[in-house]
């Protein structure tokens, strides 16, 4: 054991700072109170990593969630950002309001499969339809974790609960519905597939509109048994990535060194890109009908396909552009711009008398 040096060794590096001048730790949140081994915690870690590597300014992020174990995680990352843990299934509407009030913020939404696909399905679809700018993450475990393990609407047909109950109905596939509603960035991933998840999250954070990342995230306590199709075992064995996903930031040189025909490049705002490299399947994520067909087949054959399932610039303009909002946030406009003049009132009064 070497004795303690009098001065710190030159090798004890200061923590690495990102382009926002912040260390990784600045993107952490409070300690998690979830069950240890919960898939949600792995997603939290990827959100922290992605935010750090994306050089996010904490003040420019709003963290939003509904209710559930998954929704609690909004407190476990980006401690310096404003966060809003709302009510069950209604984060989509809250996010819409935040977006209208301040469209310069990046909304990061975390929700559960119950929160989004059961109680919140209507709001979720309407948010997608409006193309509200948000990185919307579903932490999908097929059950209601917080209320102790009932089926959620994403549970696969034939899958069982811990106590044996069998789900007889088809699952609701949030990705398929989002594609139907015009969502332009639709991804599916697995909490255990860190690299893919990290890259998909980065793309979603950069997206100008609704970007959906549906992440299978096993509930270790209530849905990790034989017969579950959202268990670690099932997900690890069955995951089939549609492609290799790489996020390339705007400040990194982009070498189009991938074989033509072997890659698919997606341009994100301000020069960033996502590069999808072909694996076994020949899959074109810009084809809406094929994407839906793929999801339908995955459902019928119990396939677990991950990657960027759909991307195509064809949806409506992002909501705040549809509304032609001024450049500054509405929230902080001065009175001189939000109260019409005395003359306006007088002329209205004249017209009424």
């Amino acid at each position, binding site marked *: 054991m070497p004795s303690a040096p009098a001065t710190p060794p030159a090798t004890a590096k200061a923590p690495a700072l990102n382009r926002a001048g912040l260390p990784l730790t600045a993107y952490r949140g409070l300690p998690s109170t979830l069950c240890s081994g919960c898939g949600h915690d792995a997603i939290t870690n990827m959100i922290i990593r992605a935010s750090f590597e994306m050089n996010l300014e904490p003040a420019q992020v709003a963290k939003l969630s509904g209710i559930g174990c998954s929704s609690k995680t909004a407190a476990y990352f980006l401690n310096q950002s404003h966060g809003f843990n709302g009510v069950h299934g209604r984060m989509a509407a809250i996010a819409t309001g935040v977006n209208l009030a301040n469209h310069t913020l990046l909304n990061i939404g975390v929700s559960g499969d119950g929160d989004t696909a059961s109680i919140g399905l209507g709001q979720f679809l309407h948010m997608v339809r409006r193309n509200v700018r948000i990185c919307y993450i579903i932490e999908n475990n097929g059950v209601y974790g917080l209320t102790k393990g009932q089926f959620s609407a994403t549970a696969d047909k034939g899958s069982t609960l811990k106590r044996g109950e069998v789900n007889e109905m088809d699952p609701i596939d949030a990705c398929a519905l989002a594609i139907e509603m015009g969502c332009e960035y639709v991804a599916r991933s697995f909490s255990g597939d860190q690299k893919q998840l990290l890259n998909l999250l980065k793309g979603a954070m950069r997206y100008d509109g609704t970007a959906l990342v549906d992440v299978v995230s096993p509930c270790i306590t209530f849905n990790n048994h034989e017969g579950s199709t959202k268990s670690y075992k099932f997900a690890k064995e069955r995951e089939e990535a549609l492609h290799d996903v790489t996020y390339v930031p705007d400040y990194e040189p982009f070498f189009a060194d991938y074989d033509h025909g072997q890659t698919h490049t997606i341009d994100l705002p301000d020069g960033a890109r996502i590069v999808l490299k072909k694996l076994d399947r020949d899959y074109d994520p810009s084809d809406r009908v094929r994407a839906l067909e793929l999801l339908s087949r995955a459902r019928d054959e119990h396939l677990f396909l991950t990657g960027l399932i759909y991307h195509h610039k064809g949806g409506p303009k992002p909501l705040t552009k549809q509304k032609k909002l001024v450049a500054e946030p509405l929230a902080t406009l001065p*009175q001189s711009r939000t109260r019409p003049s005395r003359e306006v009132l007088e002329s209205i009064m004249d017209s009424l008398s």
Partner: protein
Amino acid sequence: MSAIAPTPTSIPAPSAHGAFPVPQPLLNDFVLTVATVNGSGSQSANAVLFRAIFQMGVPVSGKSIFPSNIQGLPTWYTLRVNKEGWIARRADVDLLVALNPESVAEDLRALPSGASVILHSDLKSMLKRDDLKVHIVPFGELVAQVCPEVRLRKLVSNMVYVGVVGWLLGIELEEIQKAIVQQFGKKSKAIELNRNAANLGYNWSAEHLQNDRMLQIRRMDANRGKILIEGNAACSLGFLFGGVTVVGWYPITPSSSVIDNLAALLSRYRHDPETGKATYAVVQAEDEIAAIGFVLGAGWAGARAMTATSGPGISLMAEMAGLAYFAEIPAVIVDVQRVGPSTGLPTRTGQQDILKAHFLSHGDCRHPLLIPADPKEAYEFAALSLDLAERLQTLVFLMSDLDLGMNLWSAPRFAYPEKPMDRGKVLSAADLERLKKFERYRDVDGDGIPYRTLPGTRHPLAGYFTRGTGHTPAATYSEKTADWTENLDRLAKKFRAAADLLPAPVVEVESKGDVGLIAYGTSDMAVKEALDLLRREDGDAPGYLRLRGVPFSDAVRRYLERHRIVHVVEQNRDAQLTTLLRMDFPEFASRLRPLLHYDGMPLDAKSVVQKLRQARA
């Protein structure tokens, strides 16, 4: 005109038997009801009549009683003219314009003896009474003369009755024509068509009808400097000048026109002159849960946000209302009350959401209510609601009703807001730098109102986590009992602080003795008229305090202290405001005597008088 057979004319009522006094002409004091079919376009004609009388300087009110459909069911429009300015609803009709085959039998049956009727000649056979003054008018033939287009005749024939009524009541033809121009604005073809129709009705009547001049409008000067406006439109103007920035809504009668009007005003007056870009957003939601969700998200992020709805929408907003209360988020809901429960009578008026709105949600929560009585207050309270929501960081209700919202009222011109907007206790990055400390829910000033920061504030101390679950003053999660009760107690303190920020109650009539009366909202007109009547006829009437908001200020306590009996006039079955008064002032509970009206019609003075006399006996 002579082309028309002169057969249909006026049938005078048989002269009164000797025992009855000779009837006096009713000058500027009578009630006219027009019975038509919904969707037949009579609204414009009724508005023209209203305007023409208004322009002649005579106090007038209009109440539309309409069904919950677009076309085909009976609808009644009642104009009350009163030289003293008593323009609450009055039930007895002096002149009926009977145009609706569906309702004519009942409309005629209900008339008091000696009343006048303008009857569509097609409905002649329905006349079974001989104690009415009847003027039979061949509307079909008349309109054919001025309106060659068959398609438009139904619409235009309404303006023929305007001419007939105008002649009978002595409304000046020029005023009718001016009102038509006002009503149709720039549509010159419509103006000409409708003018011709009104002229024809007027001139034909002069030639063919008998006019005993028992119902007459005489020029006065009571409307100088006044405007005509619906309560909902007044509300919209309040939000425009109150600087609203985010509006979320889901259509429902009778609140839809608040947002329709507001959206039109915003699109006209709230685009940046240089860029043409909008300084507001109006988004139609998929339901009321989403609408209030938009408002909460926007309020949390710092916008001045509101929504408007009615009873069924309020029910859907319940969960979010509690979140706004407990997470302390500014929000405004306009509740244009209609008759419930369930979908109830969606086109009838009432004050039936008072308790529901006040306690909306689960757990302990109470929301401030603002209760306007007239368009001027609707305008002022709308702007004020945005200030209060931000000042108190809570949900504020503006409790209007269908009577105020959807009827045309005469009102004084609205004043420009002189005070700057109140954006409440918001800390900037510079404030945080100076203070070096920020705790979201700490009661720093002792008024129960904490400070907040907005997302986007560039300072490491700015961020905090908002939740509906238990929290400490520093906004961290807590299930400790002391944290919970201390927080609830602080919220109660904040609620009490609201009492002094709300508009103070108004002593409308000084009390002579120890009997008082409390009323609120649109009961005001009928109550004032009733008290005047009691004073004149019985030489005795209670004093009157008008409440304009909840929570109650100390002035309300003092009023209860000073009176042995306090009648509380309400337009609901269960004495909702009385219940609140009894809850907050249990020591005076037995002094309160609810006086209730809940048939869906606007309150009238006669029923208030009756009930007060009964109470006295």
